């Protein structure tokens, strides 16, 4: 089945089964590898991307549900890795293996878009769907606070623009 998708600001057509999860369309058809396969049942959050500005678990999100909503992956979060979260992640040196971090950053971007100055509790609530097998949670909290300090307004703006339908 043919679907017209708006991914990271570009319109593209794919011919895939209607029940194919967005994750596999991104990874195997569009060759966008940031979103990761970790569990296949929305348990780990490694596949988190934004659809219409909302964070979704793309491993269980059928491509047929996307419609005209804009899809944003980590590759499209900023033009050249300069989103406050990306900068904060680099400064704090958050990752160990790094496998979950695309999903972590996308969940954090959605949080900052709604809550520019989150508390630890806000962070824990918004990020509890994203597992980190290496246990970098304390640095994730620190980096989100840092990004919020660096430019919560800029962060919110980027996500809202990307999330426009």
């Amino acid at each position, binding site marked *: 089945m043919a679907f017209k998708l708006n991914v990271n600001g570009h319109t593209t057509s794919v011919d895939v089964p209607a029940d194919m999860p967005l994750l596999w369309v991104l990874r195997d058809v569009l060759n966008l590898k940031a979103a990761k396969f*970790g569990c296949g049942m929305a348990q780990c959050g490694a596949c988190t991307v934004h659809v219409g500005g909302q964070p979704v678990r793309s491993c269980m999100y059928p491509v047929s549900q996307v419609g005209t909503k804009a899809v944003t992956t980590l590759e499209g979060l900023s033009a050249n890795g300069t989103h406050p979260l990306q900068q904060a992640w680099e400064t704090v040196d958050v990752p160990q293996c790094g496998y979950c971090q695309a999903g972590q950053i996308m969940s954090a971007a959605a949080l900052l878009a709604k809550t520019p100055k989150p508390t630890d509790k806000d962070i824990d609530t918004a*990020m509890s769907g994203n597992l980190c097998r290496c246990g970098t949670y304390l640095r*994730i909290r620190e980096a989100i606070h840092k990004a919020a300090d660096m430019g919560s307004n800029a962060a919110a703006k980027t996500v809202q623009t990307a999330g426009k339908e």
Partner: protein
Amino acid sequence: MKRKDSTQNVLNRRSFFKISAVAGGGVMFSFPFASDLLAQGRGGAAPPPPNPNNFIKVALDGTVTIVAKNPETGQGVRNMLPMMIADELDVDWKNVRLEQADFDDTKYAAQSSGGSTATPNAWTPMRQAGAAGRALFITAAAQKLGVPEAELTTGAGKVNHASSKRSATYGELAAAVAKLPPPDFSRLKLKDPSEYKIIGKKHSAYDIGKIVTGAPIFGVDVTLPGMLHACFEKCGVFGGKVVKANLDEIKKLPGVKHAFVVERPVITDAVLPGEPGLENGIAIVAETWWHANSARKKLVVEWNEGPNAGDSSVGYAKKAEELGKAAPQRTLRADGDADAALKSAAKVVEASYSYPFIAHAPLEPQNCTAVFKDGKLEMWGNSQQPGRGRKLVADTLGVAETDISLHMVRAGGGFGRRLTNDYMVEAAWIAKQVPGVPVKLIWSREDDMRHDYYRPGGWQNLKAGIDASGKIVGWKNHFLSYGDGETFASSSAMGPTEFPQRFVPNYTLQSSVQRLGIRTGALRAPSSNAFAFVIQSFIDELAHAAGKDPAQFRLDLLASGAPLPAPPAAGGGRGGFAPPGMNADRMIGAMKLAMEKCEWGKKKYPAGTAQGIAFHFSHMGYFAEVAEVTVTGTKVKVNKVWVAGDIGSQIINPSGAENLVHGGVIDGMSELMLQEITVDKGKVVQGNFNTHGMVRINQAPIAIETHFVKSTASPTGLGEPSLPPVLPAIANAIFTASGKRLRQLPLSKAGMSWA
């Protein structure tokens, strides 16, 4: 890959350090490894003569490229080993480019990630390599500037002559260096730690820019022109075989290109080998992984489940109970007379502890990409032991190791799971069936959780006596594990010097084993991850029975030890190297630092909140940890953990080190509360993170403080030793806070949960 001819080897052996020009300009350094590095992983056999290895390239424009030789699984080794070279070479870290080595043991000697061994093995040779390079640039500059070498200094990739204010960059000197004879290694002067500019400073992961922008750097991201995608269905019971399957129907499904049965050799060993290798099953190869996996759901397979179909966790527990009541099968250690000591003790404490099988579950599911062309295999994998993986592939497929090239790709976690290489041999087998076409195999999470090499479960029946002064006088442990006769299943043994051996005069360790039909293997801090919980919880029980402060009781115990015996000549021990045994003074140092930082015994907590303490020595690392918990009913909140470790004289990358300690604590919390693999009718019941969970951010401690004792010992690894003590530290805190002594892992079995 061609074998180097013997003339080349002789030449390299004589020159010890080889310098040559590189295509496009610049210089390349080759240097040998210390023999201990070469010996590692070779079962203690005599090391081969040193092979030259190419690690440093300096281009004419001054660009420095350093080869990162080991598999990166998140432990930060990709930064650490090149940092050692770069500091001694005296170049600016921000001008260094890293190049990941392919697997090539003729060039790089040991290339593996396991046993926290990279730091101790590479510390000297990596620094020597850098220092040798620096010495050559000084020689070249002295010739060029016409001044004595002694008047020259280096810094940021330049040689400087202070009095004449002249300097030359390494790039300018590279052509001259390429013509110099090798330096005299015996005269090389390594830096004093006070001179380090890179070692000991915080450096973010080299790949962080790629990670935060989603660049395709992991095994699962490998993409090749014309590549197909595979999944692989195995029998739920280990060793089961396909009788028949609806392959003709599967082949007709959308996107499916191939479907076939993968055969394996029959294993008849009573105890499974550490790497049983290829399993029998059905491969489906399709246009995308989703097509393959959708077809897999339509598979109808009749299995011959084989001899392990009767295995069950209920059965294991029942057998353990029988074994625990019977006379132990073997005595692994008997110092003094423990029975007599217990008879005359003022107080005897008895307790049974247990821990379950658990899965590694690295977040990146097992995967491997392979293409078979003209009798040769090219592979992309993220094994922790790529050399063993390549050998397994060669042996199973009948392809020469020299006809298999292996690219080492970043791994989304290892934790010991990628020490074994079943996914590699599966990918190779499947690729060989479709010659000329690259195939990427990806396991589902359920494949991973149900076909792991599990951390073995076990039981320990302990009995100890204390005298009137509160000193432990006798210790007996009946250790119940898996195996056959005198052979333990993989990673299921307890060594005869397990703590508190040497610290209790009358010490008996006995064991009994039962057979096992599932695979076991090394999980981060193997055996220690379970034993520390048991031993340090039981010591806590003894401290309370003696009416002593649990920290002081431990310090007294550590101070009472017999002297450390001389280390064995070679081989054995955890992590593949000779363990020197625990130095009590270093552990006392770690304990005292932890107690000082957490203000042990000085804080007044409300009811339900308390601190607990524990220590454990593993992988040459000394760790003492204190947890502060609040217990509300069955809910446990870990407020804070203080970690004090001694891993030698130098923390190579403090940023990575702190991160690994956070990981050790949080990983340990997952094991303590959440994780259990059970077996029913030969099959693993749990399949995903909903049934085999891990700590989430809202359950993580509010704070983890990391402190290091800077001792005079040579630096050792940090991938593992921070994990084991956190389990008993928390369990002991729960006891003090709530009066609940929990002896069975995971604690969720007692109805507990993380707040």
